[in-house]
């Protein structure tokens, strides 16, 4: 169903997706795109590196948000695909391919591996699913580690980059991270506005009803899992180029899972903007506390726990509910006389009981 079918009976009510005129959002987006594409030429190299790592985390957090915030799958094993993406890049680079060209191939490999994995993982739900994703990540790490071709536990240098001058390499890697992040965010936005997003929101509201209405719940979840695996594979590939010494414990580090989880959690699950905001907070914390060891992660983790308990919609969710403001809306909003403006309340919110507690309004919602 598209918005055109949703013509309200009462003509005083309007159904809109965008609150801010699309032209403004688009203009803002163009400014951002131009700025970040131009950034390596105007910013010092150290800032470019920080931005690059920021974009790698944005990719991961956006993918994790898609998994957990929209499809309800709390994975703590996404580092499996980060590692596999990195090692796929390494494989092609050793075989003589330009590592940058290997990025899309790494993405495809991760998607292909993710497909059979879903048949195992989808037998479990909730917490069991979570720990099983971790087991899969652990197994992937052990398998890769036992292959001598990849240098086993000691690691392997990513070949094919030595001919590029340092500043050039820094620029190129940054641009790769930025473009992948841009593609991932835009693709997620488009995906959520499609039919698939509609299925996800119907599952969120009532899985049984969605299933009985013919929504292909499992295959939708499978698609989301594969997309998230592919996205994390891209992040892993870029990460490999940015390091570029590839080590088992580094690529398959559980810390990736922690960072993407905390960033999406704090920023706001179930919103496109939230995880990006979470990544900004993460980098501000990390840069401010960089001389204090792991304290930034402790504070970030404690913050995430606090947010999960007291403000489960995260900071962006709070802003959205408070100021009725959304930059990249995926749902529709009903406005007009007598309609309380509740800005796509609970957009893709996995907690049905909280929906019940809220005062019912005569608003209708749809994605």
């Amino acid at each position: 169903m598209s918005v055109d079918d949703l013509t309200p009976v009462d003509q005083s009510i309007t159904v809109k997706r965008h609150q801010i005129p699309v032209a403004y959002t688009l203009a803002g987006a163009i400014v951002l795109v131009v700025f970040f594409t131009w950034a390596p030429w105007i910013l010092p190299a150290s800032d470019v590196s920080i931005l690059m790592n920021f974009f790698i985390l944005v990719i991961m957090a956006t993918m994790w948000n898609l998994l957990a915030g929209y499809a309800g799958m709390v994975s703590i094993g996404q580092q499996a695909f980060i590692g596999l993406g990195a090692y796929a890049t390494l494989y092609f680079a050793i075989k003589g391919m330009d590592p940058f060209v290997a990025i899309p191939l790494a993405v495809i490999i991760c998607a292909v591996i993710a497909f059979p994995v879903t048949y195992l993982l989808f037998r479990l739900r909730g917490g069991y699913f979570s720990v099983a994703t971790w087991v899969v990540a652990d197994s992937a790490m052990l398998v890769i580690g036992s292959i001598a071709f990849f240098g086993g536990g000691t690691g392997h240098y990513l070949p094919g980059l030595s001919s590029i001058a340092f500043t050039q390499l820094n620029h190129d890697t940054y641009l790769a991270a930025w473009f992948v992040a841009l593609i991932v965010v835009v693709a997620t936005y488009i995906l959520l506005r499609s039919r698939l997003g509609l299925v996800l929101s119907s599952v969120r509201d009532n899985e049984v009803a969605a299933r009985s209405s013919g929504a292909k719940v499992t295959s939708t979840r499978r698609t989301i899992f594969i997309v998230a695996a592919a996205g994390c594979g891209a992040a892993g590939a870029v990460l490999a180029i940015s390091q570029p010494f590839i080590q088992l414990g580094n690529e398959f580090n559980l810390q990736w899972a922690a960072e993407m989880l905390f960033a999406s959690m704090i920023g706001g699950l179930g919103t496109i903007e939230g995880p990006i905001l979470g990544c900004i907070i993460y980098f501000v914390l990390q840069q401010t506390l960089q001389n204090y060891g792991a304290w930034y992660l402790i504070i970030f983790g404690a913050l995430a726990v606090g947010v999960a308990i007291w403000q489960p919609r995260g900071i962006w969710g709070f802003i959205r509910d408070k100021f009725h403001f959304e930059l990249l809306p995926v749902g529709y909003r009903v406005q007009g006389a007598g309609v309380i403006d509740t800005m796509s309340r609970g957009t893709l919110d996995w907690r049905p009981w909280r929906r019940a507690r809220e005062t019912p309004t005569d608003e209708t919602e749809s994605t």
Partner: protein
Amino acid sequence: MIWLNVIVSGVLLGGFYALFACGLSLMFGVMKIINLAHGDMAVVAGYTAVFLVPKFHLPEVWSFLVVVPIFALLGYVVQRTLLQKSIDRDPFTTLLVTFGLSVVIENLLLEIYTANAQSINIGSLIAKSWQVNNTIYVSYLSLTVLIVSVVVLAALQLFLSKTSTGRQIRAVSDDREAAQLCGTNYRHIFGVASSLAFATVALAGIAFGMYTSLSPTAGGVNLLFAFETVVIGGIGSLWGTLIGGILLGIAQQFGAHFNEQYTVLAGNVLFLLVLAIRPQGLFGKKVVMS
């Protein structure tokens, strides 16, 4: 004879895994939550034994006398504050909260006690073993842990089936609303179950510190082993947990027999096989896990 050795050491290791897993199993059975900080709690227990117990002028072998009661209390408090708050939200939140806790605990230990490995000093006991024949040695420590594990499981089983509190725990686990209607304060019962789970995890952490060395990041692997044990044995079955632990131990020893690198991988493969063939576990009831 070699295979017998593999099996014996697997069984001994299995007792340890079962001890680790029974807390996880209990918390899932009663509260329907997976405590992702389970392994880290064990590591914290180990660190408590290393750093706190010497202050009581107590030999470290007896550290469990101090640590287990502390953890039982801690379990009740953590449940009634942090965990209950997240259970009140939904299962989704408990996962995020316990995972967050796990990362916070790991990094706090790293900051306070550095990444250096610590171990619980048990003197000459570590080296003593019982020689069965030319090839098979059974270390006293492993045997003790296996016995402790069986005793703990038996005691838990007895407690759950014979005592009033145990019956209430089972009632809440079966149907929380119905138990509440009959006058059971489920929050208190959750606290008691969590207290038991923390007490067993403290024992497991101390055993772990005696076996090998503790490091801040050891919690993750321990959680994985405990989780694999629970799933292999079957969710909600305490004796299944023991069998699951033993099978996991044997699988790991079997892998290690070929190559040291395959130790953990062999366990993971067994876990994934069980998942593929019999997702409810060997002794589990066929229920929808959600």
